[in-house]
């Protein structure tokens, strides 16, 4: 392999948090699917914004407000470019993936769903791409339908799609990369299939946005939701991409300042997207952080990130698979940058407590995926998830720690 490009050199030095000991060991941070760490450039961008430019955005006629507005709208343009949207107006800032999906459910769903309609989901959806649809189904009389998962290998059973994706399906929502299985779904194919029956497609990109190229026009999706904090950005900000024609026809979902063109006592008129969907003072400070995160990830190259994280996950899979009694879920070959596993009767929370003792940050539990866990006959799994700063030696540390833990509980 040729030498990595310049930004990868000393990459760990760009993440100040990694330079610490936990329980007497160097921190091994493998909980990146929950949230990634932040590079110094993102932290500095926030610092710079609050030290120099901070003021409320829009309608401001003073210098700081104009600068803050430029920063905020600059972030929108940068995010639009990051996902290859056709225009900045197709990017709505939200608190994150969950709020983005709730926005589609509340706005598009309330205007377009009725009794007899079907919302198609998959069995591998995170609760954030499941509960909002349950809520809107209850309100509109639409029903839910699920594409099954094949079992431990964790693939969508696409042989069932013809039967499930009928003309009653008005919306098909699915994850790009499963946060529990690591499965990479064939998003472009699924979006095309949805389009064939006239259904709108919603992609949960929470686990893909920071780990691989995401191009909304190549994917052909109608909506795409993601969070900043899982892509080296800060918490509290995320975005919804929506195709312009759909956004223009959607009603507001929250009312307040910033989203109106005219207000009377008894009725008001709305601004177009994106303002229509951003009532109240928006999170411009964190948008600046998200802008810096986009720059950081493109500096590394998203193909390279995908290759790096996927390689560590496959290595971890292969090394963990050698431990007697382990059950690894999700596909063995190509996968997102995480691996999820269980050891017989040993509960994930006990395993995670032992790993913490070795300075290793893992996540254990149902990963907001209770229906999937139930289907697989599991109550919890341990999940190790990788990012740009992780190294092979950390996979070694993980495997050694897991071996020690299992030995203790098998005792």
């Amino acid at each position, binding site marked *: 392999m040729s030498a990595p490009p310049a930004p990868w050199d000393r990459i760990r030095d760009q993440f100040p948090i990694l330079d610490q000991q936990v329980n007497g060991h160097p921190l091994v941070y493998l909980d990146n699917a929950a949230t990634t760490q932040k590079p110094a450039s993102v932290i500095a961008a926030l610092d710079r914004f609050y030290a120099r430019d901070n003021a409320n955005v829009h309608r401001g006629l003073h210098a700081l407000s104009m600068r803050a507005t430029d920063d905020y709208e600059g972030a929108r343009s940068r995010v639009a470019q990051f996902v290859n949207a056709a225009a900045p107006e197709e990017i709505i800032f939200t608190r994150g993936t969950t709020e983005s999906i709730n926005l589609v459910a509340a706005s598009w769903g309330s205007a377009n769903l009725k009794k007899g309609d079907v919302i198609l989901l998959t069995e591998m959806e995170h609760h954030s791409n499941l509960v909002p649809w349950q809520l809107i189904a209850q309100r509109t009389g639409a029903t839910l339908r699920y594409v099954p998962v094949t079992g431990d290998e964790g693939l969508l059973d696409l042989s069932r799609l013809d039967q499930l994706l009928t003309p009653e399906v008005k919306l098909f929502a699915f994850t790009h990369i499963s946060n529990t299985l690591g499965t990479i779904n064939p998003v472009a194919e699924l979006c095309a299939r949805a389009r064939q029956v006239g259904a709108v497609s919603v992609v949960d990109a929470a686990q893909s946005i920071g780990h691989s190229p995401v191009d909304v026009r190549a994917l052909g999706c109608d909506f795409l939701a993601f969070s900043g904090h899982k892509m080296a950005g800060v918490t509290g900000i995320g975005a919804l991409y929506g195709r312009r024609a759909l956004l223009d026809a959607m009603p507001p979902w929250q009312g307040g300042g910033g989203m109106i063109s005219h207000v009377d006592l008894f009725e008001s008129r709305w601004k177009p997207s994106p303002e229509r969907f951003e009532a109240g003072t928006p999170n411009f400070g964190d948008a600046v952080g998200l802008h810096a995160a986009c720059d950081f990830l493109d500096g590394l190259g998203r193909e390279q990130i995908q290759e790096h994280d996927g390689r560590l996950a496959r290595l971890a899979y292969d090394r963990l698979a050698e431990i007697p009694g382990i059950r690894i879920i999700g596909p063995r070959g190509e996968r997102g940058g995480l691996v999820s596993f269980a050891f017989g009767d040993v*509960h994930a*929370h006990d395993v995670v*407590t032992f790993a913490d003792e070795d300075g290793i940050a893992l996540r254990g*539990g149902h990963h907001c995926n209770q229906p999937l866990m139930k289907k697989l006959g599991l*109550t919890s799994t341990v999940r190790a998830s990788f990012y740009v700063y992780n190294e092979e030696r950390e996979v070694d540390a993980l495997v050694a720690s897991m071996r020690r833990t299992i030995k*203790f*509980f098998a*005792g």
Partner: protein
Amino acid sequence: MSAELSDLYQNVILDHNRRPRNRGRIPTANRSAHGDNPSCGDQCDVFLRLDGDRIAEISFEGSGCAISQASASLMTTQLKGKTTAEAEKLYGEFHEIVTSGHEPEEISDLAAFAGVHAFPARIKCATLSWHAALNALHGDGAPITTESHTD
């Protein structure tokens, strides 16, 4: 292994986790309650046969970490034969042990849980089954969750 971790996973706890006592549903139970720890996904059902005010039989079913399973198992061995008032007093002692780490003066298997206090996130694991048991005793069939009380 650190002192804290070996205190947490004492032999008594490991033993109850591997070989839980009184696991399963009592067919003659006249009281039961369900407990949930939503942040962990832990669940626990406690079944009682009350004879007057005395716990004649007690059992549990559930899933969760070693701490929660061992706690439920050990609890059943401690509560059998107790009255409601005695059970409440025992829970008070157990609560003190897991939150302060102070072991009681009289010798008690419950002292095995003193190590929990060094892991505040695990206190809920240890107390889940106790809350379900007290709920069953009070005849309140409503499911309980660890989110509805502080520990």
